[in-house]
Structure formats: structure tokens, C-alpha cells
């Protein structure tokens, strides 16, 4: 039942690390890797069970990217999109299954319920978008896009970049964080007044877990879709 203000932190090389994030992040990374590793064991021309699932996920993420990014630039983002989607999906759902709190402090939960994690990925997307813009159009054309439709648009363009970065990260954080918060509140309610509240809360908790499961999947999808939209926007001359 840890509340978010009580996370274990430590300092290392002058940087603050959040132990909860690191532990749950590691769990999510390992889960993603094990999932992909298990699914890709026997790769044959005629796909078997695991390979079918893996190819379906690859087709799914590639489809999202292809819907936004024009031409053959898509292939450069295939791996990024695939890994990002899987990691976000697993992270979003992780907190629904495992929440470990020791001494009032969370140790394992959804990594994406911390803004610093989601902002890391939105920052990565923003950086990739900038890099690809420069790579495809060259510095001159890339920065000229900030001045369109006219020169005085520049502050708004810069502001838009910043808001894109923030909203992309905070959207997924908000959904997952609030989902976990509500689950915790329902849990507290269940144990507040004995048997009666447990009976009332159990179906609510189940319903909310199911909904969160759905939201987690949707948020992973939305994150990848918006990432590809932002990247695609940098690839064309406005």
C-alpha cells in the first residue's frame, strides 16, 4: 500500500536513482526479452505457434509505423517501434499483476506510472524525430520548417515541439498512474470495514483491472502511433 511519495531513492555519481523504477524497469525489460526470446526459438519458413505470434506483433507495429511514415524510411524504425510497443505494453500491465510494497514503500509496479520513465521514451522519440528531420531534409530545410507558415510562427513551433514531448510522455503516465492509484484506493476500501467491504470491492477491483488492462494496451498503441506521427511530421517539407 505504498503511496507514491514514499519511494526508495539513492544517489550515485551525483544522480538520483529511484530504486522502484530501476527494479520494476528491470523486471519489465527481462520479461520483454524472455517473451521475444521464447517466441523466436524455432524460426522456419512455415511459421509455427510462437513464430506466428511474433510475426503478428511485428506486422502490427510495422503497420502502425507504415500508416504514418511515408516510403522506405519505415524500415529504419521497425525495431524501435517493435521494442517500444512491447516494452510499454508489458510495463503498463506489469503493475496490474505485481505490486510489491515493503515497509510502506513500493518496490515493483508499472514503470510507466512514473513520469520520468515515460518522458524518457517521449524524449527518445523527439530526438529521433529531430535527427531524422535533419538526416532526410538537411539542416537548412529542417530548421526552415520551424518558420513556416511564416517567420513569426517560430515561437509556436518551438513550443509545439516541447508540448509534443510533454504530452506524449504524460498521457501514458497519467493513465497508468491513475489506474494504479484507483486500484490501491479500491484495495484500501476492501480492507477498511471487514468482510462487507471486501465483497463489495472485489467486483469493482476486477472490473477496474480489466479496464486498466485495456487502457494499458491502448496507451502502448497510442504512444507508438503518436511517435510515428511526430517522426513522420519531421520527414516532410511543410
Amino acid at each position: 500500500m505504498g503511496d507514491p511519495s514514499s519511494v526508495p531513492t539513492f544517489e550515485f555519481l551525483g544522480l538520483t536513482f529511484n530504486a522502484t523504477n530501476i527494479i520494476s524497469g528491470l523486471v519489465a525489460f527481462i520479461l520483454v526479452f524472455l517473451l521475444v526470446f521464447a517466441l523466436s526459438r524455432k524460426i522456419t519458413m512455415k511459421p509455427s505457434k510462437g513464430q506466428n505470434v511474433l510475426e503478428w506483433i511485428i506486422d502490427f507495429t510495422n503497420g502502425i509505423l507504415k500508416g504514418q511514415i511515408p516510403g522506405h524510411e519505415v524500415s529504419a524504425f521497425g525495431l524501435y517501434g517493435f521494442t517500444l510497443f512491447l516494452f510499454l505494453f508489458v510495463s503498463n500491465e506489469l503493475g496490474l499483476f505485481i505490486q510489491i510494497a515493503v515497509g510502506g514503500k513500493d518496490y515493483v509496479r508499472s514503470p510507466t506510472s512514473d513520469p520520468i520513465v515515460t518522458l524518457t521514451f517521449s524524449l527518445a522519440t523527439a530526438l529521433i524525430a529531430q535527427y531524422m528531420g535533419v538526416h532526410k531534409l538537411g539542416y537548412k530545410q529542417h530548421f526552415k520548417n520551424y518558420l513556416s507558415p511564416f517567420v513569426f510562427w517560430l515561437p509556436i513551433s518551438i513550443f509545439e515541439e516541447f508540448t509534443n514531448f510533454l504530452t506524449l510522455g504524460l498521457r501514458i503516465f497519467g493513465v497508468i498512474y491513475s489506474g494504479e492509484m484507483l486500484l490501491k484506493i479500491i484495495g484500501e476500501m476492501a480492507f477498511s470495514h471487514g468482510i462487507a467491504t471486501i465483497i463489495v470491492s472485489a467486483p469493482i477491483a476486477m472490473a477496474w483491472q480489466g479496464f486498466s488492462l485495456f487502457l494499458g494496451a491502448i496507451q502502448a498503441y497510442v504512444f507508438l502511433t503518436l511517435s510515428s506521427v511526430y517522426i513522420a511530421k519531421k520527414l516532410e517539407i511543410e
Partner: protein
Amino acid sequence: MLAHLTIVPGVGLALGDMLFFAICFIILMWAIKLVAWKPVTKMMQDRADKIANDIDSAEQSRAEAAKLAEQRQEALANSHKEATSIVSDAKKQGQEQRASLVAAAQSDVQVLKSNAQKDIEQERQDALANAKNDVADLSIEIASKIIQKELKADDQKALIDSYIEGLGKHNES
């Protein structure tokens, strides 16, 4: 430095986490690329190529089969035509042979008939010639007998009669 910045009250902006997640994500991407992404996408590409190839080759073999069927049809029609021509040739030949055989037989018969006629004629001629010779011999004989015996008219008459009688018998025979 930035550790005191907060987005959610009470949660420090732990920049170390950012670094940790960035590095871990890159490692994960690399691991997935090594373990799954490369072989799977390669296999998917291979499969796409194979399917395209299969479609092409199927199209090709279909065209080939159609060509073969056409050839067979043509050969069948040809063989029909050939068979009828062989039969009609044989018929014609048979008719010709028959006609020629009949003609040959007819000519043979003609030759045989004419030969027989010729033979008969020849025989008659021979017989006539023999008769003439006989008559001449007899005449000579008679003449010599007449000369030798100084025959009388009666004797001569009787002789000639008897001769002519003999001649007649001779001719009849």
C-alpha cells in the same frame, strides 16, 4: 541539480532513472535485434520472396500446361486426319489394284483367246497344207501309176473316183 524539480508532488525527478532506462532500452533493442528481429524479418522477407516466386512459377507452369494441352489437341486432330487419309488411301489403292487385276485378267483372257484362235487357224492352215501336200503326192503317185500301167479310161475313172473318195475321207477325218 535538477533533483528538486517535481512533476508529481513528492516524487523527485530522478535523472538517473532516465539514463538507466535509456541504456537498458538500447540494450533491449540490441538483444531483440540479435535474438528475434533479424532472423524473423529475414524469414518474413524470404517468405514474401518465395510466395512471389511460387506465384510466378505457377503462372509459368499453367501457361506451359495450356500449351501442352493445345499441342495434344492438335496432335489428336492431326492423327484423326491422318487415319482417315490412310484409310481412304488404302481404299483407293485397293480399288486401283482390283481394277488393274481385272484389266490384267481381261487382257490375259484376250491374249489366250487370240492365241487359241491363232492356234486353231494355224492348225487349219497346217491341215490344209498337209492335205494339199497329200493331194500333190497322190497326184504324183497316180500320175506315175498311170504312166507305168497305161491305164484305160475306165481304169483311170475308177482310180480317180477312188482317189476322190479317199480324199474326201481324208478331209473329213
